[in-house]
């Protein structure tokens, strides 16, 4: 992983020195362990700030929207798919970008680590598929595979789909994983159980909209929840308003979501709202054979008409 950091710095320095880009968007060490934050580097001598490890789960495509500069951007598999989506939706031009591809081996779920240790986490280090967590009480080691973010553990697009530079050889893609097992489990419930399931799932929501803000798809100048004329949805903690927000937020991501997990990662109360977006991903794949962000020359499923589009929901 540290070789990734060196390679990212080397490539970024070269791009900035040769004036190929005006800025590089990457990650820097966060002020807390496991909280790496996005970072914009504009000068070659500043590239030392850039780092890479398994705590870079934020989706950097979110920082490209409507930018006018030439940009170098560090991208793992999911970020690259969201960059493709951005290009398709005219939020950035391909010519503006130099994509520094990072073959990804999954990001660590900070909640899983926090649940597994006692007391405050002082530092987290990783090597050879193991994660060592230092707390005041001592050191504890986890297998990285066991503390991955759930979306990473079922990811089948770890390598960037588009890139201009690569920091390492592509990694082997996971096979034999079922990304939609959790959605299928909910589908198997009765309507009554499903209603209850989501009632409990969404009950802790405080309407902070961190999920929306972390999402690279949510770039509307004014979000529907912030509109007041007309007011589409109540702004309080009413369970129906909360559910309406989550339902519509997910629906706005239909055929666009790459399951990067930024929403769940950003949630301060740990709601797995990905279950909703994943249902849409599952249906998009089953009904239209569509997965978001895999090709620059294909129009999205909800953007095209085919004579054989499924229509059995219409009377």
């Amino acid at each position: 992983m540290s070789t990734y950091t060196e390679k990212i710095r080397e490539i970024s320095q070269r791009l900035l020195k040769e004036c190929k880009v005006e800025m590089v968007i990457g990650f820097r060490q966060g002020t807390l362990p496991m909280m790496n934050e996005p970072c914009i580097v504009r000068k070659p001598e500043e590239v030392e700030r850039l780092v890479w490890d398994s705590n870079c789960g934020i989706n950097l495509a979110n920082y490209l929207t409507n930018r006018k500069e030439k940009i170098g951007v560090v991208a793992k598999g999911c970020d690259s798919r969201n960059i493709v989506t951005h290009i398709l939706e005219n939020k950035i031009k391909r010519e503006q970008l130099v994509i520094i591809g990072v073959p990804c081996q999954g990001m660590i779920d900070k909640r899983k680590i926090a649940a597994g240790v006692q007391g405050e986490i002082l530092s987290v280090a990783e090597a050879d598929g193991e994660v060592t967590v230092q707390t005041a009480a001592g050191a504890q080691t986890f297998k990285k595979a066991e503390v991955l973010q759930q979306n990473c553990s079922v990811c089948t697009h770890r390598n960037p789909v588009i890139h201009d530079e690569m920091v390492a050889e592509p990694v082997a893609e996971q096979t034999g994983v079922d990304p939609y097992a959790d959605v299928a489990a909910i589908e198997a419930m009765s309507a009554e159980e499903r209603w209850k399931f989501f009632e409990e799932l969404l009950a802790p929501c405080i309407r902070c909209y961190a999920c929306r803000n972390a999402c690279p798809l949510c770039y509307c100048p004014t979000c529907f929840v912030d509109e007041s004329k007309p007011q589409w949805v109540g702004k309080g903690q009413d369970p129906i308003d909360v559910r309406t927000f989550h339902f519509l937020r997910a629906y706005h991501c239909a055929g666009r979501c790459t399951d990067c997990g930024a929403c769940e990662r950003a949630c301060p109360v740990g709601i797995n709202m990905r279950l909703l977006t994943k249902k849409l991903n599952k249906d998009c794949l089953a009904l239209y054979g569509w997965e978001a962000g895999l090709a620059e020359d294909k129009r999205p499923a909800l953007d095209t008409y085919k004579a054989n589009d499924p229509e059995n929901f219409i009377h």
Partner: protein
Amino acid sequence: MKNLLELMGIEADRIHFSWISSAESTKFVKVVNEITAKVKALGPNQRFVKQAAKVA
């Protein structure tokens, strides 16, 4: 959208989509009758209904 509503626990027969031309009056009547029959069978909707705030 229907699939996602159903995932959230809305009954399958509660929401219907149809495409009816303005010239298809008989289809319109047929579809409306079918839908009302299905929804009546389900009874009053209890889900996705916002209760008015209780004022003392």
